[in-house]
């Protein structure tokens, strides 16, 4: 049985596993009629993300075509991407772009 990861937008740097994947497993991404094969560098559970390109530390991670956070370290193609290497930098901003009060990092 083929293991799939879902890619949601052409700009995305991560895909989402829709099977429990083990380190070393191959995983297929179907997008726009094409299939691409990746190899998992770690275990990646169902619903978790796999990098489909190398991502530099400090670079924005893209999913749904939008930045979802910032890479905390260099991420290699095939790496599991989650809270250990992806930072949530969202804050509610005022009209001038300053964070509204009460938001800790």
């Amino acid at each position: 049985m083929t293991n799939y990861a879902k890619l949601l937008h052409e700009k995305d740097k991560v895909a989402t596993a829709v099977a429990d994947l083990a380190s070393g497993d191959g995983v297929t991404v179907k997008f726009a009629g094409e299939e691409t094969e990746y190899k998992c560098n770690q275990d990646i559970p169902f619903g978790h993300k796999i990098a489909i390109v190398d991502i530099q530390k400090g670079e924005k991670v893209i999913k749904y075509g939008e930045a979802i956070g910032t890479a905390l370290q260099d991420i290699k193609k095939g790496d599991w991407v989650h809270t250990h290497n992806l930072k949530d930098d969202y804050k509610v901003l005022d009209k001038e772009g300053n964070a509204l009060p009460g938001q800790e990092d």
Partner: protein
Amino acid sequence: MDFYGYPRPDGKVGARNYVALIPATGCVNAVAFHLEKMIRGTKAISHDQGCLHPPADTEQVTRTLINLGKNPNIAAALVIGLGCEMVQAEKVYEGIKESGKPVDLVAVHELGGMFETISKGAQIVTEMVVTTSGIKREKAGLDKLVFGTKCGSSDTTSGLSSNLVVGEVCRLMTENGGIFIQGEICDIMGGEYALKKLSVDQQQGEKIVDLVRDLYLRGVAVGADVRGSQMTAGNVAGGLTTLVEKALGANAKGGNVPIQGTLDYAELPKGPGRYIMNFPGHGFENLTGSAAGGAIVHLFTTGRGAPNGNPILPTVKICGNSRTNISMKEHIDVDVSSVIDETETIEEAGQRLYEYAIEVANGKLTRAEILNFDSRMEILIKGPVM
């Protein structure tokens, strides 16, 4: 596929044909419940509001009740007042009357208690059912369709399948001139700038950001950072890493369809296309807001299985979790786990769901309706309750 619905005097078209029993205050819900049991074809629109509100909530509850009465799924309405409530039954009655539908009014203090009110109400409502039950479904344009949406009891599959499939329905139905109402400001939090980019008017787009700011600051006022309550431990265990990621998965229910503007809670859209309504994620108030906005069918995505519907708004449950589709079978209308399995594309599943939603608009019952899992609703208030 064609839409066959109940034509209304104001040109709108309904998916259902109920006589609504509308209490102006929760104090007289009992009258509505008794009448609903007595008289076939009626629906009690019960709620717990109507009194001891600040003026803004009195206005919001009044607007909600009027626009529920105007909902095309309603053929006629009886407004039930007590006589001392802040939300004036007379005003609700006058508001619904603008739609040209049969509407009447009874008040418990004036008639002298429940028995007299039920007696008079039953006679009025019986004649309304005799008249309106004869209305025939007619072929209507797909531009008459108004769908609302929400996600609830979500899981990882929601942002990977069901929400995207609803997003495709949004594209298809708005291309045909329909109206699509999305909201859940708590779920938009993190994705507000993505929605602003989709807004046809950037000032309207900024209003989406304002709705998020307002919700955030109301959280701060009660000592909460509501960003934190939006990302749960279960979300993180399920693979979601950031709030923006979660929000984008929720936003996907509207796809990349341009946004025409924002709506206040229970406000009627002024034209076709996709709108963002200021309704919460909480199902009871959410479905009411959608119905008051004129939705005739609601597309409700779920991962773990949310069973609730609404008294007047047929609610289609859409689920991409293959386990839930078995374990919660009696509650799920449309299985889209095929999108997860890669056996169906989002476009194909979207077309299938669009056709299913039209079938529901044409009279097919949703599971929440069949199971009578749709009798409760609530109206959003800001408070404080006095």
